[in-house]
């Protein structure tokens, strides 16, 4: 079965037909995506299936990974935090390192980037490549995956010099956008329904993961999958669980995520979470190894309710992952979570541990409603947050850039 056939099976044949029609206008176009990691993180997760799918649609798509080292990533981590609003900035030496790596990567990738019809540069790390390639012939698009609405002004001033020279930018939400001298498209991210994290699993696979973690399949389960990060409020989730447990006997909670091993702050938060969990045998705190996607998938599928109680969030794709598994999601009323949750339809938006506890009780005591919301959640995600929708919008953007900047572009 071809990839397109597989996507048609899960996303719908109409979605794939739409892709075919749009891709028909871009046959043979050379499209290059550049990011900084080959695996791990949302960008790599989406590029992994996006490239073969684009190729099957007749585009000459490829993916280049920017080569950096510790000193470069130390600088870009600061930049990343600064773009998201922290008042931090790399020093002059850091900026020199940033420019040096961009110059070296530009040299290494010169021919492929200069010849491309469309170049998608993901996030701030490789954003300066453009300044080293004046003979580029295609359209360059800066794809910003983070909330750039309130950046540190020093860092934004610096980045703006590079980003302003692009032909377009893409943000995940209108509220993330900064003023730029080119069109800023709004394209929310998406999940890949065929990946290990989201594909259908056999019952034995799910049971294996649950029994490995000591979960009782006959008792109610709430799951939050996310990095151990204060913005994800894992301690708040424990508080919500405790408040709900008196009304939902036997309730179990899983807090699972990666990233604590190589992140000092993550390790600290994990320590706090373990402290808050205490010796409650029904709270399962699991630090997952990288790429343990089947475990994530199985945990979300075993859950009665998925939680993403962030107090601050970029887009929050773990919400779409939960919805895709037919689970109502209780999510923090912030960022892109607002786009994914509609109260009483796909889940609930909450603003406190108390709010989360109330909704856990409500959903646990209304089984029919929970199942009905789960079914709606899956259908909503099929239409709105699968890779096919994201690719459709990328294709539309490319067609629009190739055809001019008018409000209406008529082709064929």
């Amino acid at each position, binding site marked *: 079965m071809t990839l397109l056939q597989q996507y048609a099976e899960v996303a719908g044949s109409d979605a794939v037909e739409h892709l075919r*029609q*749009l891709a028909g206008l871009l046959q043979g176009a050379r499209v290059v995506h550049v990011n900084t990691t080959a695996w791990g993180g949302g960008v790599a997760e989406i590029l992994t299936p996006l490239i073969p799918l684009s190729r099957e649609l007749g585009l000459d798509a490829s993916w280049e990974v920017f080569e950096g080292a510790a000193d470069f990533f130390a600088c870009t981590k600061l930049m990343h935090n600064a773009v998201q609003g922290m008042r931090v900035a790399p020093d002059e030496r850091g900026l020199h390192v940033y420019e040096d790596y961009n110059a070296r990567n530009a040299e290494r990738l010169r021919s492929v980037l200069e010849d491309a019809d469309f170049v998608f540069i993901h996030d701030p790390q490789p954003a300066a490549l453009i300044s080293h390639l004046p003979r580029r012939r295609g359209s360059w698009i800066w794809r910003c995956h983070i909330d750039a609405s309130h950046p540190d002004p020093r860092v934004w001033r610096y980045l703006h010099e590079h980003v302003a020279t692009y032909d377009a930018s893409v943000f995940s939400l209108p509220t993330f956008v900064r003023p730029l001298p080119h069109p*800023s*498209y*709004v394209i929310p991210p998406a999940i890949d329904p065929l990946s290990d994290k989201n594909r259908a699993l056999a019952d034995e696979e799910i049971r294996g993961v649950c029994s490995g973690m000591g979960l009782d399949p006959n008792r109610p389960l709430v799951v939050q999958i996310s990095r151990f990060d204060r913005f994800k409020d894992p301690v708040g989730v424990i508080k919500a669980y405790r408040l709900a447990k008196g009304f939902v006997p036997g309730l179990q909670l899983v807090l699972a995520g990666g990233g604590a091993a190589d992140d000092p702050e993550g390790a600290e938060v994990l320590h706090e979470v373990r402290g808050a969990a205490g010796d409650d045998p029904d709270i399962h705190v699991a630090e997952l190894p990288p790429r343990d996607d089947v475990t994530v998938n199985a945990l979300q599928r075993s859950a009665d309710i998925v939680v993403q109680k962030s107090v601050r969030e970029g887009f929050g794709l773990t919400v779409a992952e939960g919805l895709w598994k037919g689970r109502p999601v209780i999510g923090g009323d912030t960022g892109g979570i607002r786009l994914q949750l509609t109260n009483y339809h796909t889940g609930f938006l909450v603003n406190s541990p108390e709010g989360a506890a109330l909704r856990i009780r409500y959903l646990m005591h209304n089984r029919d409603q929970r199942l009905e919301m789960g079914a709606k959640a899956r259908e909503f995600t099929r239409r709105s947050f699968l890779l096919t929708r994201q690719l459709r919008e990328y294709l539309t953007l490319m067609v*629009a850039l190739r055809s001019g900047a008018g*409000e*209406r*572009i008529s082709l064929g």
Partner: protein
Amino acid sequence: MIAIASARRATTLQELLDGIRVSPAESLYYHFWADLLQARFEEREYNNDFASWVAHQLHEHRLAEQLAVIDPTAFPGLEGLRVVLVETIEAALEESERLAWLRSERPFDFVRSQIVIFDTGWRAGDPAELAELLPFLPVESIFYHFIDARRREPPGVDDFSHWLSDFGPALTPLVEELVGVDYYFGSLVELRRRLIEAFAHRLAAVSGP
């Protein structure tokens, strides 16, 4: 349709008014129609983003109702629509000084639309063929041919009715039924269902028992 953000935001009614005054016409278009193209569950309580923001963020339900009742298809061009929006908000601000002081926690983000129109390769040679195609038409096509068409020549007429009028008086009842469809409420999926039903019912009447 694809969305392009302007980075212009409003947190007060005056800022909303300023934004409406200076935003490109396609921004008004986006804020009146784009929501129809999104997956959603509920009937839209307010039929455009301006009304919805005034209601849910400023909690000014009277003004929200006044904005919601504005019919974007009642104006030959979007500039006429802009004038009415501006006049409605100006009148509200003049009437109540309090409104000028309201501030929303969540801003209104001005977004504009860009529409790429392409040939799907699908063809209907006669009304029966169109009736067969309708169930398979993507909702975006329904939007383009039944709603967006009213901005094009001949103004105020959807593509289906315009095309059917070439097939003689026998199809007048079908054309009249299509003209009578109030597409401003409900979803595009629902609209497609209503069109399918209208075609099935009226074409059956034409072909007889």
